[in-house]
């Protein structure tokens, strides 16, 4: 009997999202929006976070489609403003952010590079777990898996608060959803 090896799979929605960017004639705009970071997690861009879904033109107006992370995420308003500013700086003063709910955002859309950036920034990344299932959480400072939950909700709805029992570091864990 062979042991099952865990192969990280890219969800179909995420595959399509990457394809949309690769096939898009608006490369300049995608690159401009790489500069827009999540205001709560300035380590990663809205593209890397998996919420930037599509960019299209409607006449001279740029339509930017974004999937919100959490229903009540207060960062969405700030992100929409940052998108408009970044596009204006690229020469497109007329733009609109369209919210798309379905398919619902998942932490499995966060790129592996961004997961690593989160860890370096001090946030334990969500990993591959989904839907509130327990995942192995490791201290982003020392790597120890001997950690305890302090609160199911940390500084924002998307994170839980942990403390490392090895090095005593308190840290946020980006919850898998």
């Amino acid at each position, binding site marked *: 009997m062979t042991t099952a090896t865990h192969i990280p799979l890219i969800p179909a929605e995420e595959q399509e999202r990457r394809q949309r960017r690769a096939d898009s004639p608006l490369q300049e705009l995608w690159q401009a929006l790489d500069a827009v970071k999540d205001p709560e997690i300035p380590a990663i861009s809205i593209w890397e976070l998996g919420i930037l879904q599509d960019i299209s033109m409607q006449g001279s107006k740029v339509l930017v489609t974004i999937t*919100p992370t959490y229903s009540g*995420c207060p960062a969405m308003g700030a992100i929409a403003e940052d998108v408009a500013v970044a596009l204006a700086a690229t020469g497109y003063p007329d733009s609109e952010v369209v919210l798309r*709910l379905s398919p*619902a955002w*998942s932490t499995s859309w966060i790129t592996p590079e961004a997961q690593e950036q989160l860890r370096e920034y001090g946030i334990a990344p969500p990993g591959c777990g989904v*839907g509130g299932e327990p995942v192995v959480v490791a201290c982003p400072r020392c790597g120890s898996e001997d950690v305890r939950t302090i609160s199911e*909700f*940390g500084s924002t709805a998307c994170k839980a*608060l942990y403390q490392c029992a090895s090095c005593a570091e308190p840290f946020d864990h980006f919850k898998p*959803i």
Partner: protein
Amino acid sequence: MSDANNKQAVKDYAVRLGDDALVIGHRLSEWCRNGPFLEEDLALTNVALDFIGRARMFYSYAAELSDEPCTEDTFAYTRDSREFTNLLLHELPQGDFAFSMARQYLVDEYSLAFMEQLTSSADSELAAIAAKAVKESRYHLRRSRDWVLRLGDGTQESHSRMQKALDDLWGYTPELFEMDELEQKLADSGIAVDVAALQDGWNTAVRSTFAEATLEVPESSWSVSGGRKGMHTESHGHMLSDLQFVQRAYPGLQW
């Protein structure tokens, strides 16, 4: 059902789901800076945000379906108590921490089962909102259930407060499973959730939690309902006076 009738019915249904979410979200937000400790204060307000976000999505959809020009704010800020159609359980004042967590647990256990069903609604927008909500409700439930266990199976004081909270709340729970004409009509066309069908699963889940938390299942000696008809408890108007004050005093004010 004609298209116009159907549109009106879906709008009314979206408004009541928005009302449920807004009212419980507001009650949770009242814990802001009053939580028993900092992390818990943050958790309560984060859960509040999820519910308020959910309310915004349901209200925005209702505004789209409305024949009158209106926005999500019209529903939240310009209606009076009798026009709100939220469940009574959601509007009860916060009480002590045990009361708030007991209520939250009952709400979360229901909300998760409800939203799981709504994800297969024939209305794609309602299904999309539910798909988002379901993921959040799993976390809400995990946390509120933990608190019921911790307080129920905790000290004598925490146990008696949790038991009292459940006794005081229990009569508000039959309302969660009542179907009225609107919901029946929409359930028949695959849009609304048949809440009556959720009751057995909910009962099994809460009884198992109570047993683990060493809590008694309260006696079903009384029950009240009326939220869906706009008949509310006395506290509802007081809550709205806080929630709606700014828009009432300065109509149309924007941040």
